[in-house]
């Protein structure tokens, strides 16, 4: 910190001294150098400054990059993420070269061809061949970048595989709520924004039997590793945007227009903790669309785990109906019997102790079988 501010202060100090020295010359009267004869005023030091700046910029940008690099995000934890990262650094490489070359020429020419008495500039209004060359070169480079980018984009935005794990994530002022399709029917129930109230924060429609085993979570999202995950994204009030920096995932949440994004995460939270040597590491979900006062604080924890622990976690979650049994009243009469399966009396005890958990997993998968055959 002190170090950086010190360097900055130094740069400005040097510049300020130049200012003062120059100022004195200004005050001493400039008429002599400014009129007709001799060099244009200050031409020489400005020419030199271009070279100085060039050197300074090269050194400063290289050094700062090396210092900053360790604070960049770690290698992407998703398959598409590594692909876009590679593409990013590849493009950056090409562009950095272009940037250095053009800026170098610009500054070098500025210094080299500064006004010299008696010199005359070369009258050189055009050269079609040259212009053609430098129209075609960027066009070709651009075409390559576009093509690779386009292929990645098409793959990323293609339809999610059929066996994707579906998770719904809903943005609201100011937080995320996730909803899982449940362990039995594995389908998200309908929703309707008019049904939203203080408990039913997502407007789950309990007249749809698929919603009976849905469960929600306002603080964590769990997903399995090495398995396609499809996020179904929506917003309740204003725009939000789901951003999972480590997975290179971003998609807006739009009220009235559900969006989606699918990906395969391939490093569990624990693997990342080990890799980074940071036992406190957590994946995080942030919001990147301005949504009001709490926009900067919509953190949600993301847990990536192996499939077994994931299934176990899912099974441990209380369904919406279990949490709020009152909503049984909203279930239509003909489905009441089915909904009753998910009522607290049947499962409250089983979530209490760990051994009971495994049985509930079994029961749950058995249940899924039944409901599937019922359909």
């Amino acid at each position, binding site marked *: 910190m002190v170090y*950086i*501010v010190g360097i*900055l202060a130094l740069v400005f100090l040097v*510049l300020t001294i130049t*200012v003062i020295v*120059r*100022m004195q010359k*200004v005050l001493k009267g*400039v008429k002599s150098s400014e009129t007709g004869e001799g060099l244009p*005023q*200050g031409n020489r030091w*400005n*020419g030199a*400054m271009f070279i100085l*700046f060039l050197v300074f*910029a090269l050194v400063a940008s290289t050094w*700062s990059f090396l210092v*900053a690099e360790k*604070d960049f*995000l770690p290698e992407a934890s998703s398959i598409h993420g590594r692909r*876009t990262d590679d593409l990013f650094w590849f*493009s950056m490489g090409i562009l950095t070269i*272009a*940037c250095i070359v053009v*800026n170098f*020429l*610009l500054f070098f020419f500025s210094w080299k061809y500064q006004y010299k008495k008696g010199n*005359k*500039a*070369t*009258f*050189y*209004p*055009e*050269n079609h061949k040259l212009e053609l060359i*430098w129209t075609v070169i*960027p066009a070709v480079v651009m075409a390559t970048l*576009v093509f690779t*980018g386009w292929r990645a984009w098409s793959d990323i935005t*293609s339809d999610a595989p059929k066996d994707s794990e579906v998770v719904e994530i809903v943005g609201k002022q100011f937080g995320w709520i996730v909803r899982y399709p449940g362990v039995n029917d594995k389908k998200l129930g309908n929703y309707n924004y008019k049904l*939203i109230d203080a408990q039913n924060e997502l407007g789950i429609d309990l007249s749809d039997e698929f919603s009976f085993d849905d469960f929600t979570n306002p603080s964590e999202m769990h997903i399995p590793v090495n398995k396609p995950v499809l996020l179904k994204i929506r917003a309740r*009030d204003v*725009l939000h945007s789901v951003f999972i*920096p480590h997975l290179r*995932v*971003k998609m*807006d949440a*739009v*009220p*009235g*227009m559900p969006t989606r994004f699918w990906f395969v995460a391939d490093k569990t939270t624990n693997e990342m903790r080990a890799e980074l040597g940071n036992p*406190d590491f*957590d994946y*995080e979900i942030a919001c*990147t*669309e*301005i949504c*009001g006062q709490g*926009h*900067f604080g919509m953190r949600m924890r993301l847990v990536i785990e192996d499939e077994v622990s994931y299934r176990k976690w899912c099974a441990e979650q209380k369904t919406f109906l279990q949490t709020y049994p009152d909503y049984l009243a909203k279930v239509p009469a003909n489905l009441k019997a089915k909904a009753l399966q998910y009522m607290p009396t049947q499962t409250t005890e089983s979530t209490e102790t760990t051994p009971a958990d495994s049985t509930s997993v079994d029961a749950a998968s058995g249940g899924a079988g039944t409901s599937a055959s019922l359909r």
Partner: protein
Amino acid sequence: MSVVETGIGTTVHAEEHEHHEEQNFWRKYIFSEDHKVIAKQYLITGIMWSVIGIAMSVVFRIQLGFPNANLSWLKPVLGQWINDTGQLDPNFYLALVTMHGTIMVFFVLTAGLSGTFSNFLIPLQIGARDMASGFLNMLSYWFFFTASVIMFSSLFLQTGPAAGGWVIYPPLSALPQAHIGSQMGMTLWLVSMTLFIVSQLLGGINYITTVINLRTRGMAFNRLPLTIWAFFITAILGLISFPVLLSAALLLIFDRHFGTSFYLSEIYINGEALPNVGGSPILFQHLFWFLGHPEVYIVLLPALGITSEIIATNSRKPIFGYRAMIASLIGIAFLSFIVWAHHMFVTGMNPFLGSVFMFLTLIIAVPSAVKAFNYTTTLWRGNLVFTPAMLFSIGLVSLFVTGGLTGIILGNSALDIQLHDTYFVVAHFHIVMGAASAFGLFAGVYHWFPKMFGRMMNNTLGQIHFWLTFTGIYLVFFPMHYIGIAGFPRRYYQFTTYNFSSSFTDLNAFISVAAILSFLAQFIFLWNFFYSIFKGKKSPQNPWRSNTLEWTAPINPGHGNWVGEIPPVYRWPYDYSKPGAPEDFIPQNVPYSQTPESNLPHENEEIAMEKVIEAQNFNDQFKEAH
């Protein structure tokens, strides 16, 4: 068309009469119809806005760089927005960001840059007495002024000014209950911007008509300085795109006040499900960016035009590839209308559309690259004079290149997934649009100050101002790329909520310090500017030994610009250092018949055309019979 023509008719009439009698103070300096006075009005208003806008960025930079700083000392200015423990209110942070963006883009760089120089230079460089309609031109400024007053007054509302980002995406901006910035502040924002758009349209119509109809004898389109080409194309861009923003704003006003659902659907907020269904927030984004993207060129093209002119003059060389420069201007302008959705890759838009917009966006890089190469080649084997204007122009090219290149990354939809709405974007657009255009503004002021005020600005102070600003801009915005690569989202009040954004506290402090120092450096300019208006050295007739027509007008051009006939034009504006010529410049109004020693073979044929040019209609608003 007929409307415009009557407009011209009445102006001619009005001016004919005013010409003889001295105008009173009000007519001369306040409600003036003289394009030069209007240009200065735009410039001064723009400068005042830029001080406010940049000061705002300093406040939020302090917040970002030193999140724990005690800001009680700002209480006298910000009052209630600093709480008792000396912290900045998060709502007000967003308001500051929003106002900063709106002010810088629209009020400083659209009005202050394009408004100033289109007004000032079009008549002077094409050889016209004034704009086609001085009256509309005056109205244009006063609409802008009213818009400014309204926007400014919104800063003092109890609930604060608009705070939804400069793009004011609904539903946030449509629902007063969603944010305090969406209450009265948003209403005033919309009213102000509506007036602003009207102002832009009035101005744009004028610029276009003037360029088409009022060029002096011989000033064919292929002899127009590149400044005029740039202003002309900018005006067309504005004329096509601003009405779309106007509609977007009007529909938003309907949604806010009259219960319509253009942008609203299925919203539950503050314990209440709103009745609106069927609208689309994405519609607004399409409409907004249909203006928004051309808008970035509306601010940038005039700067590029100004730069072309200044680089040629001070390299003492013709601009390299005059035709390619025009072609690339037109290419960029055309393409700028069909790339808007690159701001919307991750809105859930159809991925196929994303692919199309990616292709179109990356095509823009080609004409832009051509421009950068042409500028560089113009410097090659020149005889460069580093006036402050020249320095800022070279600086502009550097920024244009550095910032433009990261656009190629962001235009790639696959890469934009990660980078969208992070500081990488902030870095990109500040360099390529903000700083580059601001450099165009500085360059223009330094270069045409003598024509505006008849005096010179201090050269050395200008050069120092340049180096401080140039270094400052890179120190502020270059490191922002790193922060963006690390995934820091923009419009965040603080970064400590997340682990992934808990790094870079030093770098953020560094950027803030650099921003403050760059801000302070601008006072050198302000002092130089205002001091020189009154006390600067008297300007010679043609201080930069330039070819364009404005330098043939009197040092302090009066109403009507030229005394006597408007000079005709015989050649293009870039005959610098022509082989054989005794001087290193030949102004546009020097006929080929007078320069046999330097004429190229095909130019000798043009000598025969001189009679034709001279015989042309005067095209002079004051001299035409009526």
